[in-house]
C-alpha cells in the first residue's frame, strides 16, 4: 500500500494493534481492484467531459466539479450491497451511476441510475428520472434506492435516518450512506439527525468529504476542530478518518462503518480528507484561484486519486508497467486531458449517455402544473 491507513478517531472502532487483522480491502479480488481503478477513471472522465461539453456550448448550468474527489465516491460506493441506499450532494454527480455499477455497467436491473438517466438530468431532458423538474444533483429514485436531496445542505440526513428506521421495521438490514461537505456539518439538521440516529442505532453512515473549503470559506471558520470526524464524539459514535485521495483507504473506512451499522451498532461518520480542485462551481473557478493560496492549491492537487490508485495496484502486482502507462489522465485538468487519456470503455459508456441525453426531448411545458399532489394513474 502506498500510504498508511488513516486512523479511526473513535476507540470503539479501532481494532487491537497486536493482532494483525484483515482490512476490508484485503478481501478484494484482483478483478475488483481493477474495476475500482476503472471506476475512478470513469468518475474523472465524467467531470472532464462535462466541462468540455459546457465549453463547447452543448451544456448549460453550473458544474460542481468532483475532480480530485473521485476516490471518495468510488471507495464509498464499491462495497455497498445492491439495495443499500445513498444520498449524494451537489459535488457527487458520478455517484448516481456509480452506485451498484459493479460488474456490468449497463445491467438494466441494477440499483443505481443508468448513465442515460444521469445524462438526461444533466441536460435537463424529459428522460431524467425527475423529468428535469429540479436541477443538477437533485435527482434520486425510490426504486433504485437513492434519496432525492433539496439544496438545503445536510437536509437528507434525517430522511436517511427515518428510512433506516422504517427499513429495520420492515425487516430489512440496509445501510444508507449520505454524502456531505465539511461545511455542511455546521447545519442544525446534521446534529438533530445524527443524534436521533445514534439514539436508535440507525444504519446511517455519514461520509464527510472534507475538501477544506465550503465555497469561499475555509474549514476553520466553519468547524472548531481540525478533524470533522471529532463531531462523532458528541454522539458517542465512531468517527473514522480516511485519506480521501486513496480509494482503498476510503473503502476500508466506509466498510468498517457499514459493518458497524450492519451489525446493529448504529451510525458513524467517515471523514475523507481531500481538496477541492476547482472553484465551488465553475462560475467560481477564477475567483477560487485568488481566494485560495496558490501553494495550497498545488499541494491539494498533488496526490491525484488516479495516481494513488495506480501505484497501489502496481505495488500489488495487479498492474504491470505497460498497463499502467496506457492512460495519462493523471494530474491533468479538463483542458489538458483528452479522450485518449482514458480507457475506451469509459469514453464509450459516457458517449452513449450523452447521445441519449441530446436526443431526449424537453418535457412539455404543461407538465409544470402536474404532480404538485399525487396523481392517481
Amino acid at each position, binding site marked *: 500500500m502506498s500510504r498508511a491507513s488513516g486512523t479511526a478517531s473513535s476507540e470503539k472502532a479501532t481494532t487491537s494493534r497486536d493482532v494483525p487483522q484483515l482490512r476490508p480491502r484485503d478481501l478484494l479480488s484482483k478483478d475488483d481492484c481493477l474495476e475500482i481503478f476503472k471506476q475512478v477513471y470513469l468518475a474523472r472522465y465524467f467531470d472532464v467531459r462535462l466541462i468540455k461539453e459546457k465549453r463547447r456550448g452543448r451544456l448549460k448550468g453550473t458544474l460542481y466539479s468532483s475532480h480530485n474527489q473521485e476516490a471518495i465516491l468510488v471507495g464509498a460506493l464499491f462495497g455497498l450491497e445492491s439495495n443499500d441506499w445513498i444520498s449524494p450532494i451537489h459535488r457527487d454527480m458520478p455517484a448516481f451511476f456509480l452506485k451498484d455499477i459493479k460488474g456490468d455497467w449497463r445491467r438494466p436491473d441494477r440499483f443505481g441510475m443508468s448513465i442515460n438517466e444521469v445524462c438526461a438530468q444533466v441536460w435537463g431532458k424529459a428522460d431524467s428520472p425527475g423529468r428535469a423538474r429540479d436541477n443538477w444533483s437533485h435527482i434520486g429514485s425510490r426504486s433504485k434506492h437513492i434519496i432525492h436531496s433539496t439544496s438545503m445542505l445536510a437536509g437528507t440526513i434525517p430522511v436517511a435516518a427515518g428510512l433506516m428506521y422504517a427499513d429495520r421495521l420492515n425487516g430489512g438490514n440496509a445501510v444508507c450512506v449520505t454524502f456531505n461537505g465539511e461545511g455542511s456539518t455546521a447545519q442544525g439538521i446534521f446534529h438533530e439527525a445524527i443524534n436521533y440516529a445514534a439514539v436508535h442505532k440507525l444504519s446511517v453512515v455519514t461520509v464527510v468529504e472534507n475538501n477544506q473549503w465550503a465555497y469561499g470559506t475555509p474549514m476553520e471558520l466553519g468547524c472548531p476542530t481540525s478533524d470533522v470526524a471529532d463531531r462523532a464524539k458528541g454522539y458517542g459514535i465512531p468517527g473514522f478518518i480516511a485519506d480521501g485521495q486513496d480509494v482503498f483507504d476510503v473503502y476500508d473506512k466506509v466498510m468498517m462503518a457499514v459493518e458497524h451499522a450492519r451489525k446493529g451498532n448504529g451510525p458513524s461518520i467517515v471523514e475523507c480528507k481531500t481538496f477541492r480542485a476547482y472553484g465551488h462551481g465553475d462560475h467560481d473557478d477564477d475567483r477560487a484561484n485568488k481566494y485560495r493560496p496558490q501553494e495550497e492549491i498545488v499541494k491539494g492537487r498533488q496526490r491525484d486519486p488516479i495516481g494513488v490508485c495506480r501505484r497501489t495496484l502496481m505495488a500489488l502486482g495487479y498492474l504491470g508497467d505497460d498497463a499502467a502507462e496506457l492512460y495519462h489522465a493523471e494530474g491533468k485538468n479538463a483542458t489538458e486531458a483528452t479522450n485518449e487519456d482514458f480507457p475506451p470503455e469509459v469514453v464509450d459508456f459516457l458517449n452513449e449517455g450523452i447521445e441519449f441525453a441530446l436526443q431526449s426531448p424537453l418535457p412539455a411545458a404543461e407538465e409544470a402544473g402536474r404532480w404538485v399532489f*399525487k396523481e392517481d394513474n
Partner: protein
Amino acid sequence: MSAVANPTQIVKKNYVTAIREALFEEMALNPDMICQGEDIGILGGAFGVTEGLQAEYGASRVIDMPISEACIVGSAVGMALAGKTVMAEMQFIDFISCGFDQIVNMMATYCYRTAGEVNMPVVVRGPAGAYGGGALYHSQMNEAWFCNSPGLKVICPSTPYDAKGLMKAALRDGNPCLFFEIKELYRKREVEELLPEEDYVIQLGKAAVRRSGKDITFVSYGQNVYHCLQAADELAKLGVDAEVIDIRTLVPLDEDTIFTSIAKTSRLIVVNEAPMTCGFAGEIIARVSEKAFEYLDAAPVRITRLDTPVPWVKPLELYVLPSVEKIVAAALKTVKY
C-alpha cells in the same frame, strides 16, 4: 381499539377523543403507519391525544422523539420513502417553525420534484390557536405559511365529527397534510357530539354550511366558526339572517360553497384568528373578488387577529383577536352598506 371506543354505550365525544380514535383506528387498519413526536409515547402526548397508543401499538410504531422538530419531519419523509404512513406531532403547532425547512422544502415538494414517483403520506398535526392565554408561542395559527408553500394540504376542523373524519382522510390521502387542531376545543363540552360507530372519512376540500341565512355570509374555520355562529344568533335578534360556512380545509378550498352562498347573500365577512396580512382570510376575499365579483353588493370584510403577536394577559389577548362583538358590529355595518 377497546381503549377508546365502547360500542355498547352511546356517548357524546369530545374533539380530542375524536382525533385519538382516528389515530387508533388508522393504526389498526394500516400496519405501515407510524406515529412520532415529542412525549407522545410514554406520556401519551402533552394533551393526551395519543394516550394509550404506545401501549397498544408498541414503542417501535409510537415513537418518543428527541426535541428535534426538523428531524421529526425529515425522518417522517424517510419513512414515507420506505412505504410508511406517518403521523408527526408538533407538541404545539408554534414549534413547527423549528422544522420549517423540512416541511416546505423537503416534504411538500417531494412528489413534484420526482414527477410523482414518491408520494408523501405524512400528516403533521398539532394543537393550535389562541384565546387560552398561551401567549406568543402557544397560541399561533400559522397556517398561511403553509398555504403559500405549494404541495401541502391544510386542514382545520371545528367539530369532533370533522376532526375524526378529516384526520382519517388526511392519513389516507397520500399527500403531506398539515392538520391544525384547535386546542381550546379539545375538551370543550359544548362541542361534544355523537360519532358514528362505523368507519367514515370526510373528503378534503368540502366546506360545511353550519347555519343557513340569506343576508350575509360568514366564512370561517376553527374556533372562529363558533364566534360566527354566536354572532349570527345575536344578529337574528336584530333581524339579520347570517349564513355561516366552515371551510374545514384551506387547501384545497371549496370555492363553490362559498360562491353559492354569496350569490344568495351578496355580502361577505371572513373571520380567522391568524395575523391579517397574507393570512387566509385575505385569500378568501381575493378569490371571491376575482371570481365572484358580481355577486358582491358590499365591500367584503376581514376580521382577523391584528398584525401583532398574541400577547399573554387576557385583556391584551382579547384585544387583538376576533370576537363576537367585532363580528356583529361589522355585519351591521355591512348589511347597511
